[in-house]
């Protein structure tokens, strides 16, 4: 009789405790089962009616039953308390994070880094040279004769009759070849100066990367292959390129390299002056006179050289239309990259 009742109550309790969702429901449950007149104490009242023989066993069963229910109750109670506490301590996760300061390299440095990465991968070393150069290294050794109009190609700042602010990174070629025998394969980044009026398109100072490769069997075909690979790695695989004849005193034959304008894809736009092409660098086979000037055998060795302006590349790549912003160092500009 008592045992049947226990079973019945147990069934109800098990069902009800599973559906408890808040403290109120739990308290209702407590009142129903554990209060003075609750269902569990009422079972103990029934115990009085049992025989003295049955009493010890029933008492034991009843006690175990009560402990079991109490445990279940306590578990749920503590779960509810946990939830309650968590809710009380809960963060407003939507508040903004605390900002840490982080800097970055100038966009010109980042552009140069990318160029360096590509050429280093092709086995080029990286060398530097001074910005204040001798007229000899900047011009004469590079086959610019003293009174040749080729000198007009690069308006020059002079600090004395014999010293100039270098107009290109090419004198580093001379320095490198004078101290190293072939093979020489290097790029030479650096700052150069031109005595030109400052405008949105030209500045009196900018940066170049020079390239040089000299060995016994260097050909124009290899120059084309190397620079085509560079352009594709830097600008994208789908570009077209072309090499046009040009003139630099220190290379013969000389060329300029154009790539399809990546803004209009070759259809013609303002950036490419409707031509569909963008000039990205000058190059050529090292002039034999340059080899003479550094003491290389110009029959045995051939070589190529190239040079590109980093500002121009960055302007094209990032859509910058005024070269002066690179050197204003406006924080709002610097922070963008």
């Amino acid at each position, binding site marked *: 009789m008592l045992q049947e009742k226990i079973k019945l109550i147990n069934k109800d309790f098990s069902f009800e405790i599973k559906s408890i969702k808040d403290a109120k429901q739990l308290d209702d449950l407590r009142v129903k089962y554990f209060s003075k007149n609750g269902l569990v104490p009422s079972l103990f009242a029934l115990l009085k009616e049992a025989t003295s023989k049955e009493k010890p066993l029933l008492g034991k069963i009843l006690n175990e039953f009560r402990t079991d229910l109490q445990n279940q109750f306590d578990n749920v109670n503590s779960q509810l308390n946990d939830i309650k506490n968590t809710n009380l301590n809960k963060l407003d996760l939507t508040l*903004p994070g*605390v900002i*840490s*300061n*982080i*800097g*970055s*390299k*100038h966009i010109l*440095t980042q552009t140069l880094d990318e160029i360096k990465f590509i050429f*280093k991968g*092709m*086995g080029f070393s*990286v060398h*530097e040279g*001074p*910005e*204040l150069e001798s007229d000899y290294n900047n011009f004469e050794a590079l086959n610019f*004769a003293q*009174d040749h*109009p*080729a000198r007009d190609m690069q308006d020059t*700042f002079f*600090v*004395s009759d*014999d010293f100039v602010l270098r107009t290109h990174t090419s004198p580093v070629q001379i320095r490198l070849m004078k101290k190293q025998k072939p093979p020489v*394969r290097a790029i030479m*980044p650096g*700052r150069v100066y031109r*005595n*030109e*009026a400052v405008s949105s398109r030209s500045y*009196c*100072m900018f940066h170049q990367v020079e390239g040089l490769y000299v*060995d016994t*069997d260097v*050909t*124009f*075909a*290899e120059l*084309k*292959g190397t620079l*085509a690979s560079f352009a594709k790695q830097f600008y994208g695989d789908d570009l077209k390129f*072309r*090499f*046009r*004849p*040009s*003139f630099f005193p220190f290379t*013969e*034959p000389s*060329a*300029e390299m154009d790539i399809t304008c990546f803004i209009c894809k070759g259809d013609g736009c303002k950036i490419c002056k409707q031509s569909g092409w963008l000039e990205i660098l000058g190059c050529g086979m090292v002039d034999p006179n340059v080899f003479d000037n550094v003491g290389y055998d110009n029959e045995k060795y051939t070589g190529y050289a190239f040079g590109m302006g980093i500002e121009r590349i960055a302007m094209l790549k990032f859509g910058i239309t005024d070269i002066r912003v690179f*050197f204003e*160092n*406006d*924080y*709002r500009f*610097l*922070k963008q990259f």
Partner: protein
Amino acid sequence: MKISLNWLKEYVDIGNLPVPELISLLTMSGLEVEDYKDQNEIYKDFIVGFVKDKKKHPNADRLSLCTVYNGKEDLQVVCGAPNVDKGQKIIFAPVGSTIPKGNFVLKKAKIRGTESCGMICSEDELGLGDNHDGILVLDSSLVEGTPICDALNLNDVLIEIAITPNRPDALSHIGVARDISALLGKELKIPKVKSSKSISKLAEIEIEDKLNCPRYSAKIVKNVKINESPAWLKNKIKNIGLRPINNIVDVTNFVMHEVGQPLHAFDLNNLSKKKIIVKSTKEISTFKTLDSKDRKLPKDTLMICDGEKPIAIAGVMGGENSEINLETKDILIESAYFNPSSKRKTSKALALNTDASYRFERGTNPNITDFAAIRAAELIAEVSGGKIEEGIIDNYPNKIEPKKLTVRFTRISKLLGFGIDKEKIKNILSALELNIIKEDKDNLIVTVPTFRPDIEREVDIIEEIARINGYENIPTISKISITLDKKTDETTFTELIKSVANSLGFYEMINNPLLSKEKAMVIGDPIIVKNPQNLDMEYLRTSLIQGGLKVVSHNIKFGEKDLQLYEVGNVFNKTKKNIKSFDDFTEKSKLLFIVTGKSTKKEWNVNESGYDFYKLKGFLNSFERKIFLDNVLNDSYNAHESNFYDNYFQKNYKGKKIGEGGKLNKKILEQFDISQDVFLFEYDLEYLKDIAPDKKYYIEPLKFPKIYRDFAFIFDKEIIYNSVIEFISKNSSELSKSVRIFDLFENESLGKNKKSLAFALEYYSKDRTLTEEEVEKDFRSIIAAVTKKFDAQLRGN
């Protein structure tokens, strides 16, 4: 240089080649076309219109309401030009045409409430001239509705070519035609002239300076009538961007642009003794050129003189005293060859660059002077009614012969990386007038025409072959070999520096090293540029500081007041007055850190704080740690010799300064319009690179627990931190410990002129667990020592 396609076609047949293909052909052969205007394309929509009527615009005083007849119908057109009038023939732009100036498509528009169906054009709007004061009024005989291409002969293609300095031969229409003839395999047609062998007796030429004037030819035309040129000549001159002047000058310009030989016409009757003497000046002198300017001539300027006086600066510009004028009857046409480098010196010295000097300094053809003189004489006779004097005067003592050069077939493929068919090579060379005089299976021997001074060596001929054959026909290889020798990268350290700076929150700036004298502020001994672009960029920086402060100032103006910047760059100092060698100056790489404003902005859970002297020091310490120079450099705090800094310190390595900086003085900042505190530090980057180890060895972390103690003392205010910490660090027992200040407190309650410094001590050992007793003993002994040494009072006891 401008080339007219119609003119060009007189020398080479381009067949049906479309204009864009011709343009591309030129560009791809080294005559880079910068721009071209196809008049047939540009002006295709414009027609002759007739202004039937003109009324005032109802709503605008300055506008007229015109009725324009276009040959088919009357249209209402609003016009703003003051000179528009009833009865004029004008250039009419119908709706839908593209206006060259501004490149916009004309739409039917309402102007001040009145509809306008087209536009009456000015010269300027059409790109036909500079006049934008009013509309262009046409000849009244023109018929309404005629396309202006027909009415005004606008059927040319004007091509702007950038000629590289090595190609003086291409500075003429025949020169460009020669390249095209080689590219297309068509014949080059050079105009014929009557040969003129006999010597004219009418004038005499004497060359004193044979080095700088190897040849002087002249031709005389008598009884010319100076007048406007005929339309065909004016049109040609205009199309290549020149201004027609008179029939004589226009012919000399025509011939120069035809064959590349600059000419000059003298009034023969103004030549004293009918004599030309070519000689160089012996001393500095002045000379009035035909533009009425007095030119100061340096010594050794080559002059053309008559029997008495100088009459022209040879190859640069004529003199006012011998200029032809409306009364001129007889002329002497000068056609000479001058030494290129001498011409360049003169034009540089005088800062006078003319079409003639431009060509002479690049190198003209010495063997064409006679041809050009005769060609000009014949044309002048034709257009001025003059009579050509028989014979030519030609002084050419030492004929300049074409060079002979050998080309090896093997060298061509060695340089270019592929072989070119021998017949093709020979055809290219012949077309360029590089005549093959001998040939065997390995070599060609060619003569180089004297109009190609740039071709001096075998490699120059190889370039010609590659150029005409097309660079696009050179293969683009897809594999390269890489040597296995060591690769170097001299920029590695700078890259490391930059990434550390970035991680500390600094942005990189790149500044112009050229500064104004004022901004250069004379730190060190700056190098001055002799020919600056302007006075703002006259001095080379001796420090990165000025550039940095300019950036701070710029940013503050634009509301960016909290800045953390760095720069890596070279600075320059001279060590001798005149720079003649690399020993006379220094060029050093420096690294500048600069902070100003707030380091932390107020946020909902963070308090605001500003950059200060100690934050700067902290940055430097972190920076040094990351380049493995922690605890290597020593700071020193002697005052700076100038009043540049309010708070100055210096970092040294083995007694030598490696950098300096601190808080800048307000007076310095005022010069840059900066009113907030600025903290900066400049390192000598080369020295830093020299001493920075390229690797660091691993230090095993401690395995035994540390024991911590701390204490605070009250000191006299003038006792500096450094003396206390050094004393604690060095004092007493052998136990290892690190010491760190964690509090500084000043208050009247401590007593007058007192301060409290609190230190945390960490005791440790690499090989055992320390006992509380030994640490306590050491700790107590330090307390006693500090108390005694500094007369300090331990707090909290």
